[in-house]
């Protein structure tokens, strides 16, 4: 409480009127439902209440998944957005483009990427697909795990015909035989369920830092000017993570994740296949693999000419807020400090 | 020629327009619609070279007179009307109506075009009433005046019709009603019946004669048709082309309404046609080439 009051004084002079949070959202029955922990934060209402006590409004901006990343980057650069929970790749691109960001809270173990092969193609590994046509939407975050997969197998993109295509059109392309395989997110599981093809590989079989990650990023300027407000936002996410980590809330979390998105059985299947305990799915810990992941994203982006300047991944990570939140909420030790998944 | 006042004139006629009362010494009758044209020249510039279309036009039209102008294509007769009505004001010389120099359009001068130019998006009634828009006729009386003029051209019952629903002759009569509704001192008619078939034409000619006799405004009509010119005109101006000049002015000293079979009309028609066809219509060369071939102007 005293901390709160002190914070109030610290940012009193130039406190913003609104804190804006952007998050990927899906339309569901006439409403935008926010993906993952943001959904819990919004429903919880704690953050809204805390901000209101300081006379600050909370604005949550939904962004559609298809155009989410550029939209959030544009919003960050125009200072229309203060925080966003979105992907690793666009965040690196924003930083390289001169929009300073801070990773203020990791959000879990990352998202798996799937390699789906259409029916009638006899392939069991990426090497079997040599010379074949692979659908991949370029410039999207799942390009990175695919690239790592190629590297690990001593393959080059030129060993395949890479077909740049929107994920919405990918199932039809697989079904029609226009492409032989596709790199997809968990919609790949849906392709499998529809009987169009089957998954031959996913990042679940790869080191933890191969997964596509999404975190809570804060706008650099905002974080340094308003550490108190940043702390509040991070607190709210930790609360949401702790709530989601409860086994009792497991079913609710699965239902929420499926809303406006994939069928619930796909979500359940994906979650069930995880090699780590349920609570770790929501871990906000700055584990070594998180740092390693951002180093590798930054290096990949530079190596492939996607950005022109080296991004300092260490400067991106800011673990002060999570540490304080864990301490304040007495959650130290609740989540594992080291890597929890991976076969390597 | 003397004209009797006609009792059927619409009552608002007695109101003076904004431009009347210029020549106080003259009688009210002679003050309405006296047109004087003197030394009128008009040229167009076509691809850099000036071409004379009207050359030294002198003409006086008495108030209440009906003057017809005939001539071959290119004699500048339509241009002359555009100058008189004020749609074109680039000329040298003088055009005066009741002593006032013509510079722009005015409600004193009405015109009926060959194409009726009724607005297709308005009913007959609305088209006629449109002409009263900028007059000082009170709004309460406009409907009656419009109805009177529609009746004058025998179109009662078609008030709500759109132009496309009218026949050519009806549309042309509607255009005459629109031109007359403002009570212009001078009504100009630019081949008003040119687009009509022969039978309709005769019919509208009779109508026009009746209307003129009823209204007694000054009218100047341009036409290709010599017979029509003679049938309606107190005088017929014969023009020759390249450049447009008045070649002859014919007096038609017959009372109205006229009989088409009148031998006088037939004789005059033959005379005028002979005059028109005799004139060389050389269009191959420029105007200066024609100049010497043309007979001198016969002016009275």
């Amino acid at each position: 409480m005293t901390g709160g009051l002190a914070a109030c004084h610290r940012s009193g002079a130039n406190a913003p009127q609104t804190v804006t949070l952007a998050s990927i959202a899906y339309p569901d029955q006439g409403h935008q439902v926010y993906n993952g922990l943001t959904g819990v934060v919004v429903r919880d209402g704690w953050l809204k209440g805390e901000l209101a006590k300081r006379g600050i409004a909370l604005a949550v901006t939904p962004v559609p998944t298809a155009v989410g990343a550029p939209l959030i980057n544009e919003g960050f650069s125009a200072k229309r957005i203060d925080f966003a929970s979105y992907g690793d790749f666009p965040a690196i691109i924003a930083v390289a483009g001169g929009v300073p960001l801070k990773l203020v809270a990791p959000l879990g173990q990352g998202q798996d990427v799937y390699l789906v092969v259409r029916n009638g193609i006899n392939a069991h590994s990426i090497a079997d697909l040599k010379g074949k046509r692979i659908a991949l939407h370029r410039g999207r975050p799942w390009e990175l795990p695919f690239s790592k997969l190629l590297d690990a197998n001593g393959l080059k993109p030129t060993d395949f015909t890479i077909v740049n295509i929107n994920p919405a059109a990918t199932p039809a392309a697989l079904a029609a035989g226009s492409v032989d395989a596709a790199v997809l997110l968990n919609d790949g599981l849906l392709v499998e369920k529809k009987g169009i093809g089957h998954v031959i590989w996913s990042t679940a079989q790869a080191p933890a830092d191969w997964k596509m990650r999404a975190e809570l990023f804060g706008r650099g300027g905002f974080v340094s000017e308003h550490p108190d407000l940043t702390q509040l936002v991070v607190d709210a996410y930790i609360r949401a993570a702790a709530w989601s980590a409860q086994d009792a809330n497991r079913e609710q979390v699965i239902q929420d994740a499926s809303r406006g998105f994939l069928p619930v059985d796909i979500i359940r299947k994906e979650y069930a296949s995880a090699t780590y305990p349920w609570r770790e799915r929501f871990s906000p810990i700055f584990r070594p693999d998180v740092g390693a992941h951002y180093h590798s994203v930054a290096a990949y982006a530079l190596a492939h000419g996607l950005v022109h300047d080296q991004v300092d991944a260490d400067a991106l990570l800011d673990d002060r807020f999570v540490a304080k939140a864990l301490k304040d909420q007495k959650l130290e030790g609740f989540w594992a400090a080291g890597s929890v998944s991976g076969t390597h | 020629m003397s004209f009797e006042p006609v009792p059927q004139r619409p009552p608002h006629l007695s109101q003076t327009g904004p431009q009347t009362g210029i020549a106080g010494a003259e009688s009210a009758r002679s003050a309405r619609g006296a047109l004087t044209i003197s030394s009128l020249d008009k040229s167009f510039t076509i691809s850099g070279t000036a071409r004379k279309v009207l050359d030294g036009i002198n003409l006086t039209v008495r108030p209440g007179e009906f003057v017809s102008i005939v001539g071959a294509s290119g004699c500048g007769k339509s241009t002359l009307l555009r100058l008189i009505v004020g749609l074109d004001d680039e000329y040298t010389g003088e055009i005066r109506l009741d002593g006032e120099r013509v510079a722009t359009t005015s409600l004193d001068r009405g015109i009926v075009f060959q194409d009726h130019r009724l607005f297709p998006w308005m009913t007959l009634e609305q088209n006629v009433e449109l002409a009263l828009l900028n007059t000082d006729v009170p709004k309460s009386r406009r409907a009656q005046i419009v109805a009177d003029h529609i009746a004058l051209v025998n179109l009662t019952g078609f008030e709500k019709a759109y132009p496309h629903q009218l026949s050519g002759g009806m549309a042309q009569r509607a255009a005459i009603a629109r031109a007359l509704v403002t009570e212009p001192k001078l009504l100009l008619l630019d081949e008003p019946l040119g687009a009509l078939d022969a039978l309709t034409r005769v019919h509208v000619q009779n109508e026009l004669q009746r209307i003129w006799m009823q209204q007694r405004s000054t009218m100047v009509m341009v036409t290709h048709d010599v017979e029509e010119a003679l049938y309606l005109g107190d005088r017929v101006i014969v023009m020759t082309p390249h450049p447009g000049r008045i070649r002859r002015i014919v007096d038609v000293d017959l009372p109205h309404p006229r009989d088409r079979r009148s031998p006088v009309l037939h004789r005059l028609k033959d005379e005028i046609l002979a005059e028109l066809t005799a004139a060389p219509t050389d269009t191959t060369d420029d105007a200066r080439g024609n100049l010497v071939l043309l007979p001198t102007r016969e002016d009275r």
Partner: protein
Amino acid sequence: MSLLDHKPARFAVGLVAPALLLAWWQWQASRGGSNAVAFASLSTVGGAARELIVNGTLLADAAATLQRAFTGLGIGATLGIALGIAMAMWPLLDRLLGPLLNALRQVPMIGWLPLIGLWFGSDEGSELIVICLSAFFPAMLNAHAGVAQVERRYLEVGQIYGFSASQRFRRILLPAAMPMLLTGLTQSLAFAWIAAIAAELLMGASVGLGVTMQQAQTQQRLDIILVTIAVTAAIGFAINQLVYRIRSSLLAWQAPAQ
């Protein structure tokens, strides 16, 4: 004289092609295999339609999309008509803005998105701007052409009766340009409708036909995609017919075409 002179018969003939299309569709769906991705059987589609009607999604979607399309149309077409008329009346304005607008017209919407994203974020405003832009250009071009093509002979009539500038505009230019204005408006409406769906599909919103379509694409629910396509087509068609009727009554003064 002909069967086609009877309205119901004509209507029935018009149904043959869609019916054949549906039959072909059903046949494709029944072949199974890869076709299942692009063709859902008619009974599945019917089931999805029932589901969406019963839970109210379809009605809410249609209402939201219509509202978006018409708001965008209202703003875009009004501005377009005003600017088109102004450019036709003042040649200087035309010479200054004409080429620029003509070039801007050719810029695909994707080019605007970053700037729209910058100024309007992902709010409803962004979608509205996209719809407004789509509605703006046809309205502007046709209004311009309509006013520019008003025949001189009609303007001369106005001159003869001493029309003021406003009388000339209201009594001659506007009605004479009306057919073209309405043509532009019809095009604007079609573009606004398509843009509303596309904006919902690509830019996200909470309710709308495009939203449901996009969601169904994610979930690979062909039946729902087809229902939304059908509703989109039907509403677009209905609007088209309505506009046609309004146009006919507004332009009753025009002679029939033949």
